[in-house]
């Protein structure tokens, strides 16, 4: 596929390595010879599959670093960012959604609607800049860009989390509203349980069964890269790695990144399924009964 992309692979790799001031036909020829790019594509692919069989992902064509350590480095960045962002989004979104659901059409519900519309309408880039200006430039609470140190993750994660919290609030609200209208919740009320207990024991768990798969989808989106936010905050993640690998035609990194992402999607989906199964025991019981 990479070979079908426009542009000459050897030149692209040379530009990635040396910067374009130094790229000329000689540099490209040097790269072509070093990497054996003249071989037919199937030979190159077969070579890579063979290496993969030996669990050897090779080295980056541009940086010469082992692909495993390079992709691993960006993967950790991505996972950290995704986890913190998701956590923050849940912490902001779920209480908002639940509060809104307690009185549909009420003031809190309307304010939540406004919040959702606002954070969804703001592009991440603008939201990020506003956060930098407010939290970093004016209040001097957080560093505006960088990677490393415990505080540098806060702004990029918050940028992603705010955008996401709107959707989570919306989904949580609808799930809670729906659950609250269901028979078992009304029965619980009839039993004389307090609102608090009903909410915690009966509503929360049922609503969570709806919310968790949705979070899973969002986690996949976060993992697959949030290039704009990564670039704005100089956070090192897979999105960055993927974009550069495509630009530079860095095939081993591209292949490894795609592989890791595919595995991650599978892992997230499995985790979601297991969580839903734990939250919602009905399918298990039905199976046991049949």
């Amino acid at each position: 596929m990479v070979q079908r992309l426009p542009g000459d692979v050897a030149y692209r790799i040379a530009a990635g390595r040396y910067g374009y001031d130094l790229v000329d036909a000689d540099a490209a020829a040097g790269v072509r010879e070093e990497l054996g790019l003249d071989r037919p594509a199937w030979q190159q692919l077969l070579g890579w599959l063979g290496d993969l069989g030996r669990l050897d992902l090779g080295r980056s064509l541009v940086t010469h670093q082992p692909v495993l350590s390079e992709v691993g480095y960006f993967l950790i960045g991505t996972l950290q960012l995704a986890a913190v962002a998701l956590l923050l989004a849940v912490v902001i979104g779920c209480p908002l959604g639940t509060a809104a659901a307690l009185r549909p059409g009420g003031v809190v519900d309307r304010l939540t609607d406004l919040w959702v519309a606002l954070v969804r309408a703001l592009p991440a880039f603008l939201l990020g800049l506003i956060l930098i200006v407010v939290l970093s430039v004016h209040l001097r609470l957080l560093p505006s860009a960088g990677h490393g140190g415990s505080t540098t993750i806060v702004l990029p994660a918050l940028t992603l989390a705010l955008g996401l919290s709107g959707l989570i609030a919306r989904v949580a609200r609808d799930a809670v509203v729906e659950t609250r209208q269901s028979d078992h919740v009304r029965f619980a009320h009839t039993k004389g349980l307090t609102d608090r207990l009903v909410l915690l024991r009966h509503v929360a768990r049922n609503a969570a069964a709806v919310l968790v798969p949705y979070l899973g989808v969002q986690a996949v989106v976060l993992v697959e890269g949030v290039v704009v936010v990564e670039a704005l905050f100089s956070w090192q993640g897979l999105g960055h790695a993927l974009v550069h690998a495509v630009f530079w035609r860095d095939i081993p990194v591209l292949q490894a990144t795609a592989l890791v992402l595919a595995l991650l999607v599978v892992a997230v989906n499995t985790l979601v399924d297991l969580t839903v199964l734990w939250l919602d025991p009905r399918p298990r019981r039905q199976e046991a009964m049949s």
Partner: protein
Amino acid sequence: MQRFRRTSAAVTVAMVLGLAPGCSTSRAEDHHSDTLRVAGPFEIHSLEPTATSGFFTRLEVAETLVTADLEGELAPGLASEWASARGGRTWTFELVPGVTFHDGTPLTPGAAVNALDTVREDEASPLAEAPIEKISATESGLRFDLTERYLTLPAILTHYSAMILAPAAYDDEGRVAEMIGTGPYRIDRVELPASIEVTRFDDWRGTAPEIENVSYQTVSRPEARALMAASDQADVVFHLEPAGRQQVEAADGVELVSTLQPRTILLKVNNEHPVLGDLAVRRALSMALDREAMADAVLREHELAATQLLPPSLTAWNQPDLAPLEHDVEAARELLEEAGWTPGSDGILEKDGEPLRLSLVTYPDRPELPALATAIQASAKEVGIDIEVEVTNSTEIPVRHADDTLELALVARHFALVSDPLVTIADTFAPEGSDWGVHNWSDPDMSAAVDGLLAGPTEERAAELRRTVATIAQEQLPLMPVAWYRMNAAVGDHVDGFVMDPLETSWHLSEARWAS
């Protein structure tokens, strides 16, 4: 898409600034940290000397045998002196005695030979193009045996790829595993691709730097860099775009420093193209360009409009009394009419039923290039030339040069990749063509002048030959200059003694001080 993002980014910054007036809140005046924080747009891709983009020489971790001073003149680096023999076919370099690498081992002639032999294997290094037959160690230095006379060898050795690293820096395959140099700063931590931390090397042979630690952080978005500069989150911030420059200028406690870079934004022309091969068309196109308006609108500085190819920062090469390239739409139209081009029904000129339509390729790595390309498109339209702009990857230019499909390309050419511009200029006007220079163009007088300069004439004769080069370039327009280039940095007031090197050989941070 890229353009849209850039433009929207600029708009966004303006909006955010509007939302948040008074960015000039009091700056942290007490600097507890003894680390100078540098931020810039470029990433560190590798430790391989040729692929380091010069980071490690600029941060003064690694040194070269010869270096260049702020005027671009050769200056001693790890070599204290050098001389040529056999009519420039042998060069000897004497090493400065008593130099130690950061791992404590001494700098020996053998170590220097090893470093240079490794790097000249790399095709992209300017060293690979030098006619070197053999580099050998002498008792106190190095000896280069060349296959031909080559007077620019010391200049080539100023390039960052010619850095001298300790033998322990290389792994078994000759790749750099660890950056072990000889400079006033040694590596503390490198995290590819975005950060480097260095600390003072106590065994440095010269005056110890006052600033103990320096950190470099890649911040790719210009908006983020400008905010960092204006809010004291970095002490030196390189490369600010116009919106960011205004922001920094409005902020307290930070100053904008700038210098003209020896880089020219120019139109690379295919001189055997059926249309562009005609000098009259090239001249007309050049006259159609309103360079001042473009420089003013895009670079926000009308003085950057190029009046000739080689910028004033190359003092020896720039010819102040050369008749400047003028903007004259009427004269351009007349020239085209004389060349047989007549207006067609849609306003585009035609000749023998063929419209005057050209394609222009450029790349977004430097955000001003696509903007200038569209300005050129608009200028050309005024005289009836239809230019189609294609923004793509920079490597398309050498690729299309090679297969001869290039018509026009807008590029930013650096004329002093090594300290002596002659090396780059000779390449730019090579009669066989050059990837980032002329395309299908040669001129016997130009070749004679360049060869004459390479032969090492007297200073008087050299000045004459440089004038010839500039004049022929101006008359023949094989490359059409558009604008010169200024590089800038925002520097906090608490940093004293920061100097900007137009050649970017070094950031000279070892000479900077904390303001008292």
